């Protein structure tokens, strides 16, 4: 009797369940994946379009930019220029994967292996997601955000809310904390600490000391005056999280506007790990579905036809055009990720002399899944490339590095896939994925609160690469809106010399009244 899980393209819930169980056996039993519990939701293509346009989240506040995205996606889809994603998966606990009813059973199998196990495992185990996102709370938070925004729209009108959200969206990329902060102590911890402090004071109190002169009071009496804490310290400058700064210190925002900024900021932070691990995350999921589909086939659970169908879409996903191909639009994260995962497997199980030289830690250790699982847990895109991109793969993808110096009239091929170039290419590719270099490094460096309240942003330029002018002017206008006063942006090079400067001056008379006392703001 045939052991096939399914033998037609049609799917039904029974087959889905059976296939899921077979995949789970391989994914958890054989590959040792450790995913969140899964929840799979079947939706129609219309709903997929909906979900697509709200950044893939099932609940999201309303904003015209999602309508724009929807209009574009829909037009592209209806015209047949682009297909829909086969799946959307959400970093939540339980992990929710959307799959489309239009998919064939083979595609459903592929999607479950890819999303419900690959992505899911990555979300649960990668250190960035663990540190920076709260998988079990995100849906509740989005729910709160949606109703809060709706509530604000009711009270203050849609245009007012949209204006703030437009501004906030423009600063979303600058609204994250790049470096993890010390975890904020929980209420219980803070209470315990306050009690401990009180206890200590009680035990060390001695009335004797009271007779000592109060040094500070005396000094004040002497007319010196307590030196004000420097403004920079109060404002916590420099501050790289622009949204955070505006939310905390903008002189003109109302409370609800601050809360809106906070919502956008929290959502940006939630998506920040995804931006840093796109290549690895897709690579992990693609590698997992590839392994699982092959195992299903080996075990005789899916037919050859189904395998062929799978391979067709798999190869389409991991296709990497050459740089001189018309279709080239950068390095395909699926392709690079998948190649790297396969390459690691090769190095671990069947290394060459070269691999042993370059990666002595893992070459020939034998357990590919163990190495992969630890890589998935402990790296992000740039560090992962720096650690694991092998000469073999650079040769296979025929990578080369082009140097573009502003002072030079030509491009220079600085390194290629040869003995002299491996380290250089690897370093350059790793830098290409480094969020610290990819996103412009812009910080709030000054806010003249006692004076004209001008806000100064500084772009610490990397290799003198400037900002795109039109966009920058538009964003500065948004910042000025949120801040309420003039804003300037300076670009400085490595030598701290100013390279360029933009400013947005608010029109209208300068505020006649003196600046509000700082205490009110802090």
């Amino acid at each position, binding site marked *: 009797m045939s052991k096939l899980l399914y033998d037609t393209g049609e799917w039904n*819930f029974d087959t*889905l369940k059976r296939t*899921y169980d077979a995949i789970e056996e391989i994914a958890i039993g054989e590959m040792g994946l450790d995913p969140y*519990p899964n929840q*799979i*939701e*079947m*939706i*129609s293509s219309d*709903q997929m379009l*909906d979900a697509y*346009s709200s950044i893939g989240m099932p609940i999201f506040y*309303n*904003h015209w*930019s*999602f*309508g724009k995205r*929807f*209009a574009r996606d*829909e*037009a592209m889809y209806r015209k047949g220029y682009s297909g829909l994603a086969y799946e959307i998966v959400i970093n939540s606990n339980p992990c929710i994967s959307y799959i489309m*009813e239009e998919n064939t059973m083979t595609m459903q199998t592929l999607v479950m292996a890819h999303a419900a196990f690959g992505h899911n495992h990555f979300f649960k185990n990668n250190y960035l997601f663990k540190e920076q996102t709260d998988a079990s709370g995100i849906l509740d938070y989005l729910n709160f955000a949606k109703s809060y925004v709706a509530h604000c729209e009711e009270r203050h009108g*849609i245009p007012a809310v949209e204006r703030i959200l*437009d501004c906030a969206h*423009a600063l979303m*990329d600058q609204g994250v904390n790049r470096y993890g902060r010390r975890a904020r102590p929980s209420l219980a911890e803070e209470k315990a600490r306050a009690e401990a402090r009180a206890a200590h004071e009680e035990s060390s109190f001695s009335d004797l000391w009271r007779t000592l002169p109060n040094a500070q009071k005396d000094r004040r009496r002497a007319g010196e005056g307590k030196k004000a804490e420097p403004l920079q310290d109060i404002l916590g400058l420099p501050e790289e999280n622009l949204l955070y700064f505006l939310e905390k210190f903008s002189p003109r925002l109302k409370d609800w506007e601050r809360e809106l900024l906070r919502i956008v900021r929290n959502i940006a932070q939630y998506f920040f790990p995804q931006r840093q691990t796109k290549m690895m995350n897709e690579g992990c999921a693609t590698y997992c579905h590839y392994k699982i589909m092959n195992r299903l086939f080996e075990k005789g659970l899916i037919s050859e036809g189904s395998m062929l169908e799978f391979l067709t879409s798999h190869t389409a996903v991991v296709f990497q*055009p*050459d*740089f*001189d191909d018309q279709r*080239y*639009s*950068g*390095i395909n994260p699926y392709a690079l990720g998948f190649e790297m995962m396969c390459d690691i497997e090769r190095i671990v199980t069947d290394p060459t002399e070269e691999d042993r030289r370059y990666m002595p830690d893992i070459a020939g250790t034998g357990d590919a899944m163990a190495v992969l699982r630890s890589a998935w847990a402990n790296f992000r895109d740039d560090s992962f490339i720096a650690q694991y991109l092998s000469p073999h793969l650079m040769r296979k993808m*025929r990578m080369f*590095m*082009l*140097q*573009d110096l*502003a002072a030079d*009239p*030509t*491009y220079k*091929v*600085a390194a290629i896939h040869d003995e*002299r170039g491996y380290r250089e290419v690897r370093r*350059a590719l790793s830098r*290409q994925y480094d969020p610290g270099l990819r996103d*412009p490094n812009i910080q709030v460096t000054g806010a003249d609160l006692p004076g004209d309240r001008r806000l100064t942003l500084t772009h610490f330029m990397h*290799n003198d*690469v*400037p*900002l*795109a*002018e*039109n*966009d*920058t002017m538009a*964003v500065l206008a*948004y910042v000025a809106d949120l801040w309420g006063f003039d804003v300037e942006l300076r670009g400085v090079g490595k030598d701290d010399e100013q390279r360029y400067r933009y400013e947005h001056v608010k029109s209208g008379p300068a505020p006649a009244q003196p600046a509000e006392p700082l205490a009110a703001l802090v």
Partner: protein
Amino acid sequence: MNVIDRRLNPKGKSLPNRQRFIRLAKETIKEAVVRSIRERALGDVESKEVVSIPMKRIAEPRLRHSSQGGDRDQVFPGNKEFVQGDTLPKPKSGQGGGGSKGSPDGEGEDDFRFTISSEEYLNILFEELELPDLAKTQLADSTAMKFARAGHSSSGSPTNLNLVRTMRNSLARRISLGRPRREDVEAVEREFAELEAKEERTKKEEARFAELTAIRERLAARSKRIAYIDPVDLRFNRFEARPLPTAQAVMFCLMDVSGSMTEDMKDLAKRFFLLLHMFLSRKYEHVEIVFIRHTSEAKEVDEDTFFHSRETGGTVVSTALAEMKRVVEDRFPLDQWNIYAAQASDGDNYASDSHTCLELLTGDILPICQYFAYVEVYDRRQAEIFHSSLNVSELWKDYQSVQEAHPNFAMKRVFSKADVFPVFHQLFAKNRKAA
């Protein structure tokens, strides 16, 4: 694992977002719509429309690196011949690295296209336009009635019976009055039939049988007394007759088809009439069009003849006006119809006829017309040669005096396809009089 079927969940969650987006992009969409009406062929005006919007209008700017300037390294796949140290010329104009360096995340965005429905299209097209001087006939004539739903009533004709409401009332009444439920009745009947069928009954069964007989009777009586559906349950959809302002209009298309009118000119005229027709059909439930063409004589014709046959001969414009007057008297009682007219001509007229025209217009036509628009069409070549405001026809000069005295008369000149919509827009703009 949990599979949840969400397909029945509402779709269109993005609808509010889409509406917000359209509202935001409205200005741009409108420009695109106007542009498209200038360029498109006749006849497909009511089809769906693809509108493209320049990205910058609805941009979401971010602080991102410029594609130019500074020093940068980039890794590419697919090297074929390069070795270390090779140099490549940079493309001129300092455009770095071709398309591949366009934007850092590979999201090159150009113009943004999306489809709006023909309904949305026409709404935008005719937004801010209105029919002038509607009030007169609305007030004068309110004999037309329209039936509109107006809640429910307890009496009405059987066709208007509202089943859901009726059954709901009936159910409530049955429950409150305690009409035996069918299940109960059936259970009793079954038990009764069982016992009845038995040849011999025990004493206990006999007692039960007697009891059941009594229950049966009681239930039957109760069921009879409390009807399943009682007249008091009945609910009918109620309709109310509401007076409607006259919702019909007739449009007279008057066109000069004499030898001097070229195909190009007729095309311009036709575009104008077409817009007018589309516009009227949106404002009125029923629009009739009367085509009248004239050379030295005027005749009512069908659409095809109107636009496609061409004749030679002299031009006597007044004949068309006279014909229009005749048709109105014949078929369109003034108290029932809103009358509109548009006249297209190249302005060539038989010399002594202009005076007759003026008399007809001011004496007979304008008093009965809601609005009379005169469009003078120019041949493109002719316009190039004589493009001057001084160079106007006799008819134009005469009509100008009419325009000054009659607010429901307007005139414009059309030189090219691109002029048609703007001219139409000016003729029907809401604040036409102010402007």
